């Protein structure tokens, strides 16, 4: 029987069950082919000042995508995603407090070039993707966003990162941004996303203040989550956020209110899977305090 997620599910310790074997919010459907998601971490990708080591980051991206696609060479792996002659848009995120790191953008762009795409046919953009000719003409998209909490949507990840493709952003705000998954059905987007990269180098697990950012709630997790399925990637990201919130804020604040858009991207919009039974999570690299 379906019922809305409530505080009582936290008290009972059945949050995960109610979230549909993690996120389904009561969904009841059989698992089919599993969506592979790779979580890769490296202890030294950040120094004590959170400065990124670009070489290590490139290696993490390469290893993650190779594992995701079952390839032993990063260029061959990216050649499975994009082809020479294509126009590729890398949808990044420039939120000033916690943007997609330029080092990660560069690592992605490098491999897209290595895969044979001409540099002048690779777009890198956030706020102006709707008018950027490289995104208007894009035949493939790569979706890269940092993981953070959000007052309305609960979390910002790969699904919400496509909000800039919307004619009206506030139109997606009702009911805790429930229908963000429909962004992936917009004509400029549908069927074009080849890779989703959730940057969890320094995720933000809680937000305060009008801009929803405070350094107290950011930690050095030193990871990337990569997958072909944006819903599965965000589902793992949400599990990470919930685990960190449970550790720091307590069980009662485990769930950032209320990330229903992840499950609805699956059950209502059909763009991926939020069911943990249908997600194959592969963990690579540094395992300390991995939380998920």
């Amino acid at each position, binding site marked *: 029987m379906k019922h*809305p997620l409530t*505080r*009582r599910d936290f*008290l009972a310790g059945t949050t995960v069950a109610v979230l549909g074997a993690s996120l389904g919010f009561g969904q009841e459907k059989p698992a089919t082919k599993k969506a592979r998601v790779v979580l890769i971490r490296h202890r030294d990708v950040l120094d004590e000042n959170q400065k990124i080591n670009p070489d290590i980051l490139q290696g993490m991206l390469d290893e993650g995508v190779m594992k995701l696609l079952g390839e032993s060479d990063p260029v061959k792996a990216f050649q499975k995603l994009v082809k020479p002659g294509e126009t590729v848009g890398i949808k990044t995120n420039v939120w000033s407090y916690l943007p997609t790191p330029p080092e990660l953008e560069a690592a992605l762009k490098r491999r897209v070039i290595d895969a044979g795409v001409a540099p002048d046919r690779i777009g890198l953009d956030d706020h102006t993707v709707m008018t950027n000719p490289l995104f208007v003409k894009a035949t493939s998209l790569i979706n890269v966003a940092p993981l953070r909490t959000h*007052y*309305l*949507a609960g979390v910002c990840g790969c699904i919400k990162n496509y909000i800039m493709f919307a004619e009206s952003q506030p139109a997606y705000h009702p009911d805790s941004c429930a229908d963000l998954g429909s962004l992936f059905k917009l004509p400029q987007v549908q069927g074009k996303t080849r890779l989703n990269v959730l940057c969890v180098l320094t995720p933000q697990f809680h937000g*305060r203040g009008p*801009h*929803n950012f405070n350094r107290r709630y950011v930690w050095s997790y030193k990871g990337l989550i990569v997958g072909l399925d944006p819903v599965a990637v965000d589902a793992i990201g949400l599990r990470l956020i919930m685990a960190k919130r449970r550790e720091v804020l307590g069980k009662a604040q485990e769930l950032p209110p209320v990330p229903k858009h992840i499950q609805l991207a699956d059950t209502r919009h059909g763009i991926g899977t939020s069911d943990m039974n249908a997600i194959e999570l592969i963990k690579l690299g540094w395992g300390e305090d991995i939380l998920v």
Partner: protein
Amino acid sequence: MDIGAKIPVKADGLTASGKDRTFNRQTLYDYLDGGAEVYLAFDFREVFTRKYTGPGGREMTLDIYDMGSPGEAFGAFSCDRQDPSAGIGQESEYGPGLLRFWQGRYFVTVTASADDEAAAAAVLGLGKDVVKQLGPPGPKPALVSCLPAESLRPERTSFFHSVVNLNNRFFVAGENLLRLDRSTDCVIGEYGAGGAEPVTLLVVRYPDASGALAARRSFLASYLPDAGPDGFARTENRKWVSAGVRAEYLTIVFDAPSADAARKLGASVNFPAK
């Protein structure tokens, strides 16, 4: 909001940079995106914002929200408190990188990119300068005084209207079981000694009694289906929850140690006189 001219352009080595900006109910999304909903759920009118920058990339942002009335300003402040008082305005809090306070109809935040002593001095100094320009203090919403005073943790009292604020303050459910919107007034308080699990009291005022009754039915059906006709049930943490209605008021007690304690706290609510 003609306040920019009164606010200092320098603050502890930081200088105002760029143009001052103002956003209203229609344009707040341009500034805060999803965070806008938190303020639009109140009677928000407009926000004045100014950035300060300094050596080494230091940044500070001042936001002055005109919330329309002191009650709404208190509401915006009250929904997200967790740091010690900074002694600025009617009530305030300061934690590394973030000052929040309210004064009269204004709710103010000052955020800094750094969280060291210099940033704290700049943030607190600016806050003290700003509060002088915001006029006299104003009253909290009358509904706040309905909370019984005994064992109340005053710094944990919140006032709001909508489910987005409720769930950020005290998660109840993923759906809007209590049918909250801008027409409802809510006050939530915590009871008990510090450190112990608090008992939480939520009082909601609906436009009319039928609204309160419908919300109670919705709450009992989805949250407390095991409750009897009296609206009491023991939940998974072995604590008690109760839901009662009096006229247009819905009163819910969460996490009481006994049914009797829930009943007693619910009965202690000081409903405002008509």
